[in-house]
Each structure stands twice: as structure tokens, then as C-alpha cells.
């Protein structure tokens, strides 16, 4: 399977939102190199506590506190150091802090639901948050999104740009979710499911999930070329 065939198609009629938004004409292929340029400097401030979604307000958010960690790698398995990771998510009740979210579930005055961080020397990211709730959407009758955290990564170059979603292991809603099942092969879908990570849990404080992310393109890490 080629890289392209592993990705979800633009038109996936079970996900109703694709029907009027997927391009109908074929994408134009450019010769090699035309999309090879480095990511620009990301102009957004990333503060020390931006990775902790539970400490952005006066009180703590309601919900199951979790630690989400993982590595960001290039397609050769090399870590991407100091790369930007942005996340956003619903609160524990399944509600986003967004005026267009009409789900009749409570907002949490102590939860915004957005965070960001840079990966460390080993390509590791780390967020502290609460486990998001499932929520209904109007795609089809009784449609519910499985619990998920949205991730956005710039990577090192234009081709490595990725926006995706991380899911939680064992969620029975995953098999019924057309956004996840749009990915053609099972191995690809599994790559979006985090694993419970007992090593990272903190006793008497938080559970943990681990999820690695692999981006297109090559990281510029000359040291590792010499191994």
C-alpha cells in the first residue's frame, strides 16, 4: 500500500460532511521537490504551563485526570526535537468551549480544553489533562464520537504537517465512527489509538496513555546518522 492509500479519502459518504466538501476533480501532482520547504518559525508563544490543561483556571476541572505522552518521529523513526504539538478537546462531559457546540452537556468553568508544548531532546511530548467525554453529533441517527483528543503538528517541513485525533483503547464507539473508519486499513486505524501506559501513571494522582506520532519527511538529526 502506498502512503497515499493509507490515508482517509477526501470523499467518504458515511461521513456526511465530506459530501459537499471533498474535491471532485483529481489533485494535481507536482514533480518531486516543489513541496519540499522547511516549516517556518512558529510565531505562537509556548509557555511552561501550556501543556497542563488542568491548571489554566482558578480551580481544577471535573473529570478523570490523565497524562498523555508519546514521541514524535519521522518516517525513518528518528525523533523530532523541539517540534510544536498543539491539542484541543471536549471536557469530561463531552462539551467543547465553542459557541457552536450545541450539545446539552455542562461547560466546565475550570476547563478551556486547549494546550501546546514542544517535544524534548528525545522527541517526547507530555500533556496533563482530563479524559474527554464522548458526545453526540448529527451525522446519522444516534451518532456519537468516541472520546478523542485533537492533535496538530507542524513537523519540520511542509509535507509533514498533520492534523489528526488520538483515541482511547477499548472504546466501543470507535467501530461505529465514520471519521475513524474512513481510514482504509485496520493497522492505520489502530495507529490512532493510544495505549494505557502503567509506567507513566502517578499513584494516587493520574492514569496515563501513550501515543506515538509518525510524520512524513525526514528529521534533520545528523548525530543519529552516524550510529
Amino acid at each position, binding site marked *: 500500500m502506498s502512503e497515499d492509500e493509507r*490515508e*482517509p*479519502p*477526501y470523499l*467518504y459518504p458515511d*461521513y456526511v*460532511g*465530506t459530501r*459537499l*466538501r*471533498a*474535491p471532485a*476533480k483529481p*489533485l*494535481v*501532482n*507536482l*514533480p*518531486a*521537490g516543489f*513541496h*519540499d*520547504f*522547511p*516549516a*517556518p*518559525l512558529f*510565531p*505562537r508563544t509556548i509557555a511552561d504551563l501550556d501543556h497542563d490543561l488542568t491548571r489554566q483556571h482558578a480551580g481544577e476541572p471535573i473529570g478523570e485526570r490523565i497524562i498523555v505522552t508519546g514521541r514524535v518521529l519521522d*518516517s*525513518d*523513526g528518528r525523533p523530532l526535537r523541539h517540534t510544536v504539538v*498543539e491539542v*484541543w478537546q*471536549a471536557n469530561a462531559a463531552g462539551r*467543547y*468551549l*465553542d459557541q*457552536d457546540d450545541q450539545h446539552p452537556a455542562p461547560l466546565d468553568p475550570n476547563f478551556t*480544553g*486547549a494546550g501546546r508544548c514542544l517535544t524534548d531532546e528525545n522527541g517526547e511530548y507530555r500533556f496533563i489533562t482530563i479524559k474527554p467525554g464522548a458526545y453526540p453529533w448529527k451525522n446519522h441517527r444516534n451518532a456519537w464520537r468516541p472520546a478523542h483528543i*485533537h492533535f*496538530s503538528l507542524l513537523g519540520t517541513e*511542509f*509535507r509533514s*504537517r*498533520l*492534523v*489528526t*485525533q488520538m483515541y482511547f483503547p477499548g472504546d466501543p464507539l470507535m467501530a461505529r465512527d465514520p*471519521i475513524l473508519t474512513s*481510514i482504509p486499513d485496520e*493497522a*492505520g*486505524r489502530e*495507529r*490512532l489509538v493510544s495505549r494505557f501506559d502503567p509506567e507513566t501513571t502517578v499513584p494516587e494522582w493520574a492514569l496515563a496513555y501513550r501515543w506515538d*506520532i*509518525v*510524520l512524513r519527511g525526514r528529521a534533520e538529526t545528523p548525530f543519529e546518522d552516524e550510529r
Partner: protein
Amino acid sequence: MSGPLTPSQTVGPFFGVGLPFEKSEQIVPAGSVGAIRIEGQVLDGNGAPVPDALLEIWQPGTGFGRARTDSEGAFSFTTVKPGPMRAPDGRTQAPHLNVTVFARGLLRQLVTRMYFPDEAEANAADPVLDLVEPARRETLMAKPCGGLLHFDVRLQGERETTFFAI
């Protein structure tokens, strides 16, 4: 050999809390020397506004811009016009902006280019425009509009924007 890439998923409708940030639509500060304003609309296959799209411009050597659409599907950026660029094959590319589109209903991003209407000669020699069928080239061309540039993104339909594989 390629590793197991992490597949893409839609940005969804509720990215507003996470992705746009203050002045993220200004690649250069509004009012700075040479600044140009670009305005446009994102439209679906029925010509209806797309109120939950996010656009990014990655401009080599200049910076990064990010803008969401409003309830009318409208967005704007402020930047400077780039110079001509050398193409990988040694030819010269006309000045252009790389525009990436995310939206609810897009399971992957779309990539397009915005070219400048006052560059007829450079556009005629551009190796990428040359790959686009002539009738569709106008979908990549911004239009002058009272001191600013107008650039619409039509995701689907008769005047569908030309998108490029990445």
C-alpha cells in the same frame, strides 16, 4: 522505505479553542511597509459558505499565518508579496503563496497556491501553472479588489479550486 505514518483526521468544527491565536492571520503586522491584505471566502459544492475552515499560509523566508473562516465563510490574511522562487528543476516560479485548508468534512488537508494578478509574464512561465489545465488556472489567481486581493477557495463544484497532491 517509509515508516508507518500516522493517518490524518478532520480538524472538526471546534478547533477555535485550540488553533487560531492572536494576530495569527498577520504574517507581517498590518500597516507595515509593503503589507498586502488578502480576503476571501471558502465555499462548498453548493456554493454555500464554509464557516468552520482553517487556512494556513507557510511563506518561506517570511513567516507563518493561520486564519479561520467566520459565519460567512470569510477569512483574511496580511502579508507581503514574495519574490520569484527557484523551482527544484532550476526554472523560476512566479511569486505565489502556499495555502493549506483544513475544515470539518475534510479528512485530510488540501493544498493550493495563490498567484498574483500583476505578474502576467512570470505567471505565464510558471512551471506549476503550466501543469494545470488552462481553464482551471484562474482558480489559483487572486483578483485585485479596491487595494486588496481577493482569493476564494471552492472546495467542490464547477469552479473548484485546483488542489495539489502532497
